[in-house]
């Protein structure tokens, strides 16, 4: 058998072996067996030295063709085998994607602070800043400067928490004290007006206290957000526009507002603001006690007497103030049946929001 025949025989044999290689390891072995240092093809080529100079080019060409054919077959088989191997591996690694993920649990924000932050954001957008103040206040800031008469029932021991005054000062009313837990965040507004000159646009969220027994709809401690604007040319129409904007952002653009005249010592004119019931859309249902409206805010134009207490010229400046209970908004927005849930720290409640 001539060299050429040997080469062609090796090619046929090699191609068959490649075809039969079952996996990548077998294929590697075939490569070594034919193209390796001690491989069949290499051995044949080594025999080329014995050929004449005339024979060599022709045989050399055949040898190259055989090598190329084997290389090509190897590459093709390699690709087929490796993609099969990959598929097999991937198939073996498939998971049930419906199994739960591996997340480090993240915490939730308390409903009251969530709503407070929402309200703050709305008013930041209207150019307000956030003002804060002490929770244990002086009678002056909580009542007197807010135009509350000395014998107003809100000042009674039944309604307001008083704190022992260690300064030795005598209280104006026996049994009471000049120091108390603020019943509203309005004292912050008074302090702001004492400290700053108009224009004033502030929002004061914070904790307030009233002597109510904790029950599904009352807590002795709750959260209030009040707003105050003092500037030139502020009108009742501006108050309406501001609260309309707030209600639409907070409760949705379709909700309507209703202003009912009311009485508060520190504003005049004063109003209570209702928002149309989101459940019945104003038609009347059990949630809104058939009125179609839900009361959410108190508001009014700052009483000139209040400006008098803080030295703001009530002829030059006018202003408005409004206040809302965050717990009430929570109860309305989320239908929380019992406000006491808000202070119990029950993980099952907190994790819902």
């Amino acid at each position, binding site marked *: 058998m001539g060299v050429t025949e040997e080469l062609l025989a090796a090619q046929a044999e090699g191609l068959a072996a490649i075809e039969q290689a079952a996996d990548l390891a077998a294929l590697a072995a075939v490569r070594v067996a034919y193209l390796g240092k001690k491989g069949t093809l290499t051995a044949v080529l080594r025999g080329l030295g014995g050929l004449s100079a005339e024979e060599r080019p022709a045989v050399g060409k055949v040898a190259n063709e055989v090598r190329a054919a084997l290389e090509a077959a190897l590459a093709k088989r390699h690709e087929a085998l490796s993609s099969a191997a990959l598929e097999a591996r991937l198939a073996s690694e498939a998971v049930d994607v419906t199994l739960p993920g591996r997340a480090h649990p*993240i*915490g939730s924000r308390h409903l009251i602070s969530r709503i407070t*932050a929402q309200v703050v954001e709305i*008013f930041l957008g209207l150019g307000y*800043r956030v003002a804060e103040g002490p929770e244990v206040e002086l009678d002056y800031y909580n009542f007197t400067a807010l135009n509350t008469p000395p014998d107003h029932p809100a000042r009674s*021991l039944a309604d307001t928490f008083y704190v022992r005054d260690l300064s030795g000062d005598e209280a104006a009313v026996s049994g*009471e004290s000049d120091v108390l837990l603020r019943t509203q965040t309005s004292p912050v507004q008074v302090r702001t007006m004492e400290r700053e000159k108009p224009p004033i646009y502030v929002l004061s969220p914070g904790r307030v206290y009233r002597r109510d027994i904790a029950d599904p709809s009352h807590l002795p401690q709750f959260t209030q957000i009040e707003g105050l604007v003092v500037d030139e040319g502020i009108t009742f129409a501006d108050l*309406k526009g501001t609260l309309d904007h707030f209600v639409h952002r907070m409760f949705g653009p379709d909700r309507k507002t209703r202003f009912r*005249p009311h009485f508060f010592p520190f504003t005049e004119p004063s109003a209570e603001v209702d928002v149309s019931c989101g459940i019945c859309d104003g038609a009347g249902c059990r949630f809104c006690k058939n009125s179609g409206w839900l009361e959410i805010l108190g508001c009014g134009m700052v009483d000139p007497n209040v400006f008098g207490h803080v030295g703001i010229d009530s002829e030059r400046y006018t202003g408005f103030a409004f206040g809302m209970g965050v717990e009430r908004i929570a109860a309305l927005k989320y239908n929380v049946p019992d406000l006491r849930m808000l202070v119990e720290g029950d*993980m099952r409640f907190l994790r819902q929001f």
Partner: protein
Amino acid sequence: MRVSMSWLTELVDVGVPARELAERLDMTGTAVEAVHETGESLDGVVVGHILTRERHPEADKLWVTTVDVGDGTLRTIVCGAQNFDAGDKVPVALPGAVLPGGLEIKKAKLRGVVSEGMNCSARELGIGEDHEGLMILPPDAPVGVPFAEWYGAGDTVLELEITPNRPDCLSMAGVAREVGAVLGVPAKVPASQPVESGEEAAAACSVTITDADLCPRYAARIIRGVKVAPSPAWLADKVAAAGARPINNVVDVTNYVMFELGQPLHAFDLDKLAADSNGRVAITVRTARSGETLRTLDGVDRQLRSDTLLICDSSGPVALAGVMGGESTEVSETTVDVLLESACFDPASISRTSRSLGLVSEASMRFERTVDRTGCVAALDRAAALIAEVAGGQVAPGVVDEYPAPLQPRLLTLRLARVRGVLGIDLGAEEVAGILRSLGCDVEMGPESLQVTVPSFRPDIEREIDLIEEVLRIWGMERVEPTLPGGRGRIGMLTREQSLRERIGDVMRACGLNETMTYAFGDPRDPERCCMPFAEGELPVELLNPMSTEQAVLRRSLLPGLLASVSYNQRRGVSDVHLYEMGSVFWTSEGRKQPKERTMLAGVLAGAWHPPAWNAPAVPLDFFDGKGVIENLFRELAIPKLRVRACDAGHLQPGRAAEVLAGGEVLGWLGEVHPAVLERFEAHAPVVAFELDVRALVRLAADARPFVEPPRHPAVELDLAIVVDESVTAEEVERAIRSAGGKLLAETHLFDVYRGNGVEMGKKSLAFALEYRVPDRTLTAQEVESAHERLVRKVTTSVGGTLRS
């Protein structure tokens, strides 16, 4: 204030259905709390005649009555009221009747006696407030007739909430005037002039007022020869509709006129007042003298305070001025001559007396809010005429009217520009004037402003702004077009502290803690229960009127509240608890007025981060989970140099207690709560907790960390396991490594702590991963080797350890 629609329509032409009127009132500042329909759902209620009344054999407070309801069968009805007698006629609800409150009447055994129905009070029938006794019907009420038929067709009653600034609306005439203004129709003011005869009133009594500030006016009339008896039906009905219990014709007239005109009146039995030798009664209005007492109408002996205003005769006090009459001079069935009082008292004085005696009456409630003193005599005349009409008798000529402090009419200027400036609406002078006139003001027009004379019954209108409010209220808030305040360069933003507090909350939640809120109140025993004593000189903030002894002070720490929440969860089977709270704590010191407040951040961790999962076991939380939260927090706030130093703290488990420091300043504490403390809160160990001063965190927080270029050259990583005494802290070893590593050591972190096989008792092996690297080139193996050798030598010497073999 209960307003009967049928009564109201006598005074003003309402012309709209009650529901619509309620809506209009709501929108003009008079809140309507409820609208009741009466007389509608009273099927099964009939007029009954009580024939006998016997004590219940088994119960002191109950009566067994025999009642004739006109159907030929006498019924036994058990009854708890005390105000009736055999012979009285009362409304009787028979079995099957459903009362307005939803109560269904059934035949039932009451303490062993079968009751075949119920004798009713006015409140049970929804036609009055009175529930202290049965509704006693006039003797001529026809037995067996359906009650609703006899009582009259159904009426609608509006319950109005009258705000403290509107005393004028505490009368039917006042409400009628308000309704008139709201609807734009005129209202009537009821008035009567008595026919006078006999001896002059002045001959029978005189009045002396010692302090005109406390009593600006006192007017009296004398009516002789009255016959006290039950009121006629029309009068009893009106009084009941307004919410009072009919008593007798004279007293009912005084109540009727009070409800009608808002002027409280009091009737004395003239013959029981002490008279001088001429038979003349000298009334004196003065404050109490020390030791004086008075038995009031309700039979209670009252100790009088020196500021209590009294009506006295020559023998002493006969009534608490403006609050309640005395028992000894009360009008009774035997009364013949009456002294009728129509006076006015200082609101603050009445309020004090009423508060200090715990006695609130229809009269005191009106005086407290100011009664129009100009109306005293008109009310007196009206009442005298009505008494003469329903009780007979002669009204003595003349009024004894002591009026030392006449009310001066109030004149206000209302600028039209100011109306526009405050309300943002354009109103013409005529429109404004029209509104004010409908409210009873006299208005004089000027070019720019109106001169307004305020009616005497509106003490609340004192300033221009009060007039502006009235204008807006009646014109209609709803009609004001909303606008937004004009923009003049203002920026809404949070302060640095506010936004950092937001960020602190973000980090807590990112770490897996849930925000909570607990009470700011604390138990005075908390410092002891938690072993967290007050610092030297600090005192708890004490409430003078706490809701309970467990909430008698303000909290000094957030820990007790959070531990209570841990316990709350654990008792309900929730064992994984991760909570944080940001809130104020409070303390004070001797001589301090306003206490100190500080915002704190506290957290509690119990159980595991999550329940066992298919791919992650539940790992019990411990000290280091709390520390991890604080590490994250410091990282996010860019506070450099967090240090956690072991400490002794009573509330924390020894050996798992630490102070949290930054830059040498203690910011708070961290640790596992002492089991003894947990036991007092009924919580199960372990509970990891921390509490940090938010103000200090904010102060130390940096706005940004400096930029450091990420390394470009590879590091050589080597491990170092060193065996040291238990007493040597990881921090000490790490510090030794850093100082020995010099410039070549870029990073180091502890990755293993090992005790046990191969490590001597009382010692531990700490394994650190070290990264050697310099920024500008790749280190050679030789450089690293010699640096590491040097480091090992130095570290082992300085911390007294050996390399772990």
